[in-house]
């Protein structure tokens, strides 16, 4: 499968930035959209737009059909047994907040324990931190080892009879670490059988085959805009039984069954959790994205990214002063450990000597290369790694080896701009230390 041919489907890749062809390496932040997704949303608005679930007229029936077909499509894509286990929300952040609000708030009390990792995205860290503070629950934070892997010993130790919720990333948006979800969930079932398990799949679903019915978790979240879909649509998958037991999230139209002055009854799953007019066009766009990915085959997407990641790690390991975080860390010291990326997604976070990631990103931008710099919505992790900021390149289907070559050239330009070979730099490394 020639992934280069896919580039023709992405109009934005023709853009020039600062006079150079765009090299888009910020896919962990958001992905670009293929023509097919844009056309699907456009077509909906041009020919089928109407509100869903209400009304008898033809347009409304068409729109409802398209919306609910999209749900079926997404359900099949991630291996859900039943489309009523797929709830459409705004994004993964909202999906997690839904769980906290509808379930966590009422089921996690004083003295109960929540287990999560130091590497969680803020959406899966702050929510639980705040809930714990409000309800008097205890947050147990599992560290990450030098090679980017979860500290399994600490993880097992953290699981007790008081554990109510265990939540963790499927794929880390900073380290690229891929958690062995099945392994983790079976450990949890053993040690804390009563705990519920929520997995953050935002960086997984776009890049590798995911089957929620086999993972052993109770809840799983992901988002449309990272998987070629539009912004404004995300998904919460949950086991039917659990979702049935949860109280609604937002109240209003659509999520009701019968409303009287005295009381209201709720709609069935999944509509109980979808109040108000949904992002119909967005959901349809997500479904078109699912079709696009299915056509390529998500296992092929994964193979493509393994190739790119290995190539990138290889090239980066030869540049002195470049530190790569996660597995294959220590590349700058000439270490050859962990070069293989079977346990790693196409996310490479790095720093160049004492140069601030902001400056790296600025200079790369001047060469038309888009990377992200900062803390990547994971301040606890960046602190834990002992740095103040990190640059990150992340790949997707339309990236090529040439993109990586351009990245490497850009990194060499960064080094040159900052005279990184000169002795003076080493002295000033002190400036970049966080504490004085």
């Amino acid at each position, binding site marked *: 499968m020639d992934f280069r041919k896919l580039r023709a489907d992405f109009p934005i890749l023709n853009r020039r930035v600062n006079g150079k062809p765009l090299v888009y390496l910020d896919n962990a932040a958001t992905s670009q959209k293929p023509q097919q997704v844009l056309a699907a949303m456009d077509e909906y608005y041009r020919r089928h737009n109407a509100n869903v679930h209400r009304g008898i007229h033809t347009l409304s029936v068409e729109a409802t059909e398209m919306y609910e077909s999209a749900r079926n499509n997404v359900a099949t894509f991630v291996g859900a047994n039943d489309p009523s286990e797929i709830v459409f929300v705004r994004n993964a952040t909202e999906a997690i907040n839904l769980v906290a609000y509808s379930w966590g708030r009422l089921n996690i009390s004083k003295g109960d324990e929540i287990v999560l990792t130091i590497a969680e995205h803020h959406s899966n860290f702050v929510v639980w931190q705040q809930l714990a503070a409000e309800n008097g629950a205890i947050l147990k934070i599992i560290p990450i080892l030098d090679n980017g892997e979860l500290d399994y010993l600490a993880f097992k130790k953290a699981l007790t009879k008081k554990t109510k919720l265990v939540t963790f990333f499927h794929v880390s948006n900073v380290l690229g670490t891929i958690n062995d979800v099945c392994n983790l969930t079976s450990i949890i079932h053993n040690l804390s059988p009563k705990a519920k398990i929520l997995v953050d799949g935002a960086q997984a679903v776009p890049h590798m085959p995911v089957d929620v019915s086999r993972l052993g978790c109770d809840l799983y979240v992901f988002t449309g805009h990272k998987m070629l879909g539009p912004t404004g649509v995300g998904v919460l998958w949950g086991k039917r039984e659990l979702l049935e037991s949860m109280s609604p999230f937002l109240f209003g139209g659509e999520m009701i069954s019968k409303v009287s002055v005295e009381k209201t009854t709720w709609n069935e799953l999944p509509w109980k959790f979808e109040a108000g007019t949904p992002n119909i066009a967005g959901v349809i766009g997500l479904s078109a994205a699912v079709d696009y990915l299915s056509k390529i085959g998500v296992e092929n997407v994964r193979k493509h990214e393994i190739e790119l990641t290995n190539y990138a790690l290889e090239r980066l390991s030869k540049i002195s002063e470049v530190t790569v975080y996660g597995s294959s860390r220590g590349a700058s010291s000439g270490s050859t450990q962990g070069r293989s990326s079977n346990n790693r997604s196409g996310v490479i976070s790095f720093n160049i000597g004492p140069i601030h990631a*902001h400056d790296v990103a*600025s200079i790369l931008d001047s060469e038309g290369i888009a990377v992200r710099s900062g*803390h990547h919505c994971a301040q606890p992790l960046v602190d834990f790694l002992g740095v*103040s900021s990190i640059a990150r390149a992340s790949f997707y289907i339309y990236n090529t080896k040439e993109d990586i070559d351009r990245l490497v050239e850009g990194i060499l330009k960064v080094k040159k701009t900052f005279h990184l070979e000169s002795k003076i730099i080493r002295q*000033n490394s002190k400036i970049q230390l966080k504490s004085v």
Partner: protein
Amino acid sequence: MDLYREEILEHWQNPQNFGEIKKADLVIEQANPLCGDEITLFIKLDDNRSAIRDIRFTGSGCAISIASASILSENIKNKTVSVISKITGTDVIKLLGGQIAPARLKCAFLPLEALRRIRV
């Protein structure tokens, strides 16, 4: 890359007034948590507490924020607090040579934000 011309890099490599002042009159911490720039100003006032006799800074941050702190610190020595309170963003940009891209303005203004918190 004009933003990173020699002068800026000079200030980043060898920032003026880098370090602490023990028994400073004022210690002001300013950070830009969104990107990891942070700076601490140590200020010694004159006997009237109306002018800056000495200023140093420490911190970690991008080249722009460090260069800006370095250049500003040189610029405000022995100036009165009143004059310093009138320094604008435009002044800072001029001091830096005038070529700061919109995305980097926050970096350039970090030390200015700190100065604006001077209370005597």
